[in-house]
C-alpha cells in the first residue's frame, strides 16, 4: 500500500486517497473554439509514460483536496507532491530516470 504525502496533511496511507488521472490537463477556456480532433485529444489523449508521471490524487478520506504528484510508474516512488496551481517541480535526473 502506497504512502502518499498529502501537501496539507502529510504522509497518509493510499486507502485515504482516490486517483485522479493525469495532471496538468487544463480545460480549454472556450471548448467551442476547439476542432473535433483537438477536443478529442483533450478528452482522451494521455501520455502514459514509463517513468515519471504527473498525476492527480484526491485526499478524499482526509482533507478532500485534489493535488498533484510525480510518481515513477516503474517503481511507485513519489518524487514530489504539490498543490493544485503550483508549478510542476523539477526533479533531479537520477531520481526521475526510469530504471531500465
Amino acid at each position: 500500500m502506497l504512502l502518499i504525502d498529502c501537501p496539507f496533511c502529510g504522509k497518509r496511507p493510499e486507502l485515504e486517497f482516490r486517483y485522479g488521472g493525469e495532471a496538468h490537463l487544463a480545460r480549454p477556456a472556450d471548448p467551442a473554439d476547439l476542432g473535433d480532433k483537438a477536443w478529442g485529444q483533450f478528452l482522451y489523449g494521455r501520455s502514459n509514460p514509463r517513468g515519471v508521471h504527473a498525476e492527480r490524487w484526491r485526499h478524499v478520506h482526509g482533507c478532500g483536496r485534489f493535488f498533484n504528484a510525480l510518481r515513477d510508474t516503474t517503481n511507485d516512488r513519489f518524487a514530489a507532491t504539490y498543490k493544485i496551481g503550483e508549478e510542476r517541480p523539477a526533479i533531479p535526473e537520477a531520481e526521475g530516470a526510469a530504471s531500465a
Partner: protein
Amino acid sequence: MPDLTQARQSVLEGIEASGRAGTFSLLPPLSRLNYRGRISTVGRVAAAFGVEPAMEPCRAAIFGDRAALWLGPDEWLLLAKEGEARSIIDRLAIALAPLSYSLVDVSHRQVALKIAGPQAELLLNAGCPLDLDRQAFPVGMCTRTLLQKTEIVLWRVAETEFHIEVARSFAPYAWRFLEQAERDL
C-alpha cells in the same frame, strides 16, 4: 397534530447498550455545522462562535463545550451543544456579513462515539491505518480518515481519549466493528 419535537431516535437505538463498560461508548447528540469559506473569513467566525478555528492542518480548537475541527484548508466542523445550531447560524450570519461563506447544519448527519482508556489506540488501530502514537497523533489532532470500511473524523481529545464522528448510516457498522475488535484487546 402531534408535537414530535422530542421524538429523536438515534440510529444506534437497539444496537447500543447504554452504560457499557468497554473502551468505546456513544456520545449524546450534538449541534454540528459544516463551515466552508476562504481563510480570510475565519477570524470573524471566532468572534461569533467563541472558538477560533485552527489554521494549522488537522488541528482542533476548543473553548468550553465548543470545538472547531480543521477538516480541510477551507472546511471546519463546528461542534456545540444540542439545540444551538440555529442560534449559531444566526450569529455567524451577522458577524460574517457581507463576506461569502457556506454554513450547513449537519447535526443529524453524524454520530459521535468516545473511545477512551489505555487501550484506545489499539482498538482504533484494528481498523484505522494511521499512526496513533502520541508523537505522531498528539492531543488536539483531528482528521478525516478510515475505520475499516467507513470514513470517520478522528479527534484526540486527551492522551487516552478519542472522539470519533461517523456518518449516521455507517454508525451501526462502526459500532459492530468496534465490538468485534474489542475482543482482540
